[in-house]
Structure formats: C-alpha cells, structure tokens
C-alpha cells in the first residue's frame, strides 16, 4: 500500500536570516545575502565573496560548553532542524522511535575543522589533535546530533552527492515513508564550506565568481555576464510525514511531496553534460512519478548556480523534459542569486522556498538577471518576484559527480 507524504515543518539557517519567515520575506523583496567574505586572509584569494551566516549562534540550542564539539555545518542543521520540529508541533517522545528518521545531506563536512586540526598537527604534532576532530568533521554528524536530541532510533545517516545531497536525502525519506517503513523524518541539507579550503578549492576550479568589487551583483544565474557561483553556507531542514500520521495528530500540512527523479550523468566528475540529457531525464522522471503533464508545472526552482556551462545545461534539461512549449510557459527562478550556492544545503533551503511559493503564490526572483544569455531562453523571473497561483513545483539539484536529483511538491488537497 503506497502512502502519501506531506511536509509539516520548515526550518532554515541562511544568509538571508535564521528563521523561515525573515529569509522568505527578504528573498521576495529582492534582497541579497551576499557580501565580502569575512576572513582576514581574504585578499590572497581569487574569489572574496560569499553568502555567509555572519552572526549565527547555535545557542541556546547547544550549550556553550558543547558548541566547540559540533562543527558549523552540523550546528546549522541542528538549529534549523529544531525549528522545523517545533514548527511541526512534533513530540518525538510520543512516536515509535524506530519509525522515525533523520537523514540530512551535506557535501563536504567540516572543512574548517580539518584546517584547524591540520594546522595544530603541523605545529605541535599528532598528540595535540583534538579528540573531537573526527566526530566534528564527519558529515553524518548533522543527522546524528538531531537523532540524539530527539531519541530517533530508525534510519539516521548523511547523504553525500555534493550539491545534490539535500535532494537525495529528501528523496530517501520520501521513499521510506511512501513504502511504509517510517512515519516521520527530519530531512534536508546543510553546508558550511566558506572556509580557506572551500574557497580556495572551488576557486582553483575557476568555479567561483570573482566579481569582488560588487558582491551583491556576483550571483547572476542565466545572465550573459555570469562568471561562476558564489559560495554560500546554511541549512534547510524539513519535516516529512506520512499523511494519516500527520492528520491523526492534527498537524498543519504545508504541502505534499508527490514525486522525484534521480539520474546520473556518468560522463565527467565535475562538468555537466551540456545537452542536459541526464538532468533532463531526472526532470522527466519527476513528472512521470508525480503523474503530471509538462504543462501542469507552475514553478521550477532551478539549480541555477551561475556557472557558464551549468545554466545552459539546465535550460536544455528543462526543455528536454517539458518540451519547448511548456518549458517557455513555466516560471523558473534561481534563489541562489540571493544567497549564493549552499552546496549540500542548497536543496533543503530551496525546497523550503518552494513550499512557501505555493503557500503565498509568489515566485521568488532571479536577482541580477539583467542581460539574459541567448542560450538561456526561459522565463527565469528576472529581478523582481511575481505573484502567480502555484500548485505544483519541481525543485532541481545537480551535483559534482554527475548527480541529478529533482523533487516534485504540490499544494495539499485531501
């Protein structure tokens, strides 16, 4: 018996704010969360801009003495996760703990802690390394800390498919609820890779925008003058729940998860297939699994990172899946234009925004899309948000490694 899966709670930590309503309002109003990277070494890096969670603190959720034991990416997921659970009105002590899950995506884990400990190791030797090093850097720590807080004894693990991590995590949860394995889960994605290694590493690939003199203008998906993505940090965590379970406890149902598609390029470790064959297949599979026709889709929250190749490939993928006509009619936007690319966290934050787009009937804008690339010829909702009734959304995520993962949500109708 196939179950229905609904979303009952949202939580966010993002460069536009640390609560859902603040981040969503600022996003709709066209504000940018991108600024100069707050690092004293900034000037030796090629790219010096980022979407940062500058005054974020995990307190009071994590006690001061324990803050140093939990790495930043896991702190983000912890805070966003607790907020999502609270918003869902969920009391885990009343649940069968073996039918609960915590599955959180993360691309690279604790880069900054690796840097700190490597510095210590080089300077003072291996015996001075913190015993918390491994439990801090492992990317499954995000899901595990939430499991410990709530006594979740079902499936708990991290998912790593680079920038598609959050979507792959949420797809796992969707399938587990749908087939009756679990009742409810904390899921989404997180990342805190705005660190020396992260910025230098992506910089070395020439993947990052170097528009250092105009940070707010740097993230320009689908624009002719785009020059790479802006690295961002944060988490988007949601509560997914089996429909009858949600109804029984009188939960507020925000949207329904109705389908997904997951494929792999298997062509190059980082470079996307330019024709969008495999990403297109993922979007198409999503339509099929949701039982939608191409013209049923109201909004696509694009992966849209603002790399030269990626935006063209995604445009091609959407056209392949929806067909030229329906592709031209659907509202598309990239919220990375406002907060940068949250890597493993991006799919989580973007599904939060997707849910809110159906709630409020608002397509968030693609900032900085001033001169569209001729190869990117869809309606990307440039510069300002647009009001439109939105019943059905697809959220795309594509990751290094060739991972393509898309999720379909719909306005909930009983």
């Amino acid at each position, binding site marked *: 018996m196939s179950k229905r899966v609904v979303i009952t709670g949202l939580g966010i930590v993002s460069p536009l704010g640390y609560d859902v309503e603040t981040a969503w309002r600022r996003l709709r109003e066209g504000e940018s969360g991108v600024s100069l990277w707050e690092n004293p070494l900034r000037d030796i890096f090629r790219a010096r801009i980022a979407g940062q969670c500058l005054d974020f603190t995990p307190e009071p959720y994590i*006690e*001061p*003495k*324990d803050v140093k*034991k939990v790495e930043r990416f896991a702190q983000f997921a912890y805070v966003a996760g607790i907020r999502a659970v609270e918003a869902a009105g969920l009391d885990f002590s009343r649940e069968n703990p073996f039918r609960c899950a915590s599955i959180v995506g993360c691309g690279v884990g604790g880069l900054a802690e690796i840097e700190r400990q490597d510095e210590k190791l080089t300077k*003072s030797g291996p*015996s*001075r390394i*913190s*015993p*918390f090093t491994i*439990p801090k850097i492992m990317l499954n720590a995000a899901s595990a800390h939430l499991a410990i807080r709530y006594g979740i004894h079902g499936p708990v693990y991290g998912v790593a498919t680079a920038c598609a991590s959050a979507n792959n995590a949420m797809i796992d949860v969707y399938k587990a609820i749908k087939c009756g394995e679990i009742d409810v889960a904390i899921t989404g994605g997180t990342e805190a890779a705005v660190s020396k290694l992260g910025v230098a590493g992506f910089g070395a690939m020439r993947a990052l925008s170097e528009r250092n003199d105009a940070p707010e203008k740097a993230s320009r998906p689908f624009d002719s003058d785009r020059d790479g993505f802006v690295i961002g940090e944060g988490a988007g965590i949601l509560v997914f729940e089996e429909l009858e379970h949600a109804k029984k406890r009188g939960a507020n149902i925000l949207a329904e998860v109705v389908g997904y598609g997951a494929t792999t390029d298997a062509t190059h470790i980082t470079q996307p297939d330019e024709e969008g064959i495999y990403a297109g297949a993922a979007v198409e599979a999503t339509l099929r699994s949701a039982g939608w026709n191409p013209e049923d889709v109201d909004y696509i929250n694009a992966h849209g990172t603002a790399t030269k190749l990626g935006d063209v490939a995604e445009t091609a993928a959407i056209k392949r899946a929806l067909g030229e006509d329906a592709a031209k009619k659907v509202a598309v936007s990239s919220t990375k234009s406002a907060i940068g690319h949250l890597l493993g966290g991006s799919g989580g934050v973007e599904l939060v925004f997707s849910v809110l787009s159906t709630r409020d009937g608002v397509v968030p804008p693609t900032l900085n899309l001033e001169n569209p690339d001729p190869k990117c010829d869809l309606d990307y909702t440039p510069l300002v948000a647009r009001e439109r009734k939105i019943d059905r959304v697809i959220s795309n995520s594509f990751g290094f490694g060739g991972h393509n993962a898309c999720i379909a949500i719909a306005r909930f109708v009983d």
Partner: protein
Amino acid sequence: MADEKQIEAKIIEIIAEQLGREKDTITSASDIANDLGADSLDVAELMIAFEESFDIDIDEENAQNIATVGDVVKQIVSQLDEN
C-alpha cells in the same frame, strides 16, 4: 618545587572552562568523569589542555590512573618536579 596551590587553581580553571562548570563547584576530590560529567572524549581533550598549559607530555599509562582533580595535580606536580 612547583607551587601545588597555584597548579590546582589553574587545573580547576581549565576543567571549568572545558566542561562549562562554575569553578567553585570543583574541588580536589571531584571525580572528573563521575562528578563532573566528562565523557571519554572530554577527558582526552582535558589531557591535551593540561599538556599545553604546563608544557609537558602526560603518557598514556599515567593518564589512565587519573580519576580526580587531585590526581591531575599530583601527576603534574611530579612531572614538573622531575623536569
């Protein structure tokens, strides 16, 4: 001779900081794991903090014998005196 009182005060300060406790709740008789709630990783972290603070190396065998704050003081005093 190392000043035992001073060393004890420093050790209590380090423990208080690491475990998030008030200094005046920690005495020489406090058991680091059972009374102060340190887990195995906390204890390992504390040993490193003591080593860095007093510029010594506490070997594994001696670390195993440490249970209370007083044990730490004794260990460090004896190592400092040897030096």
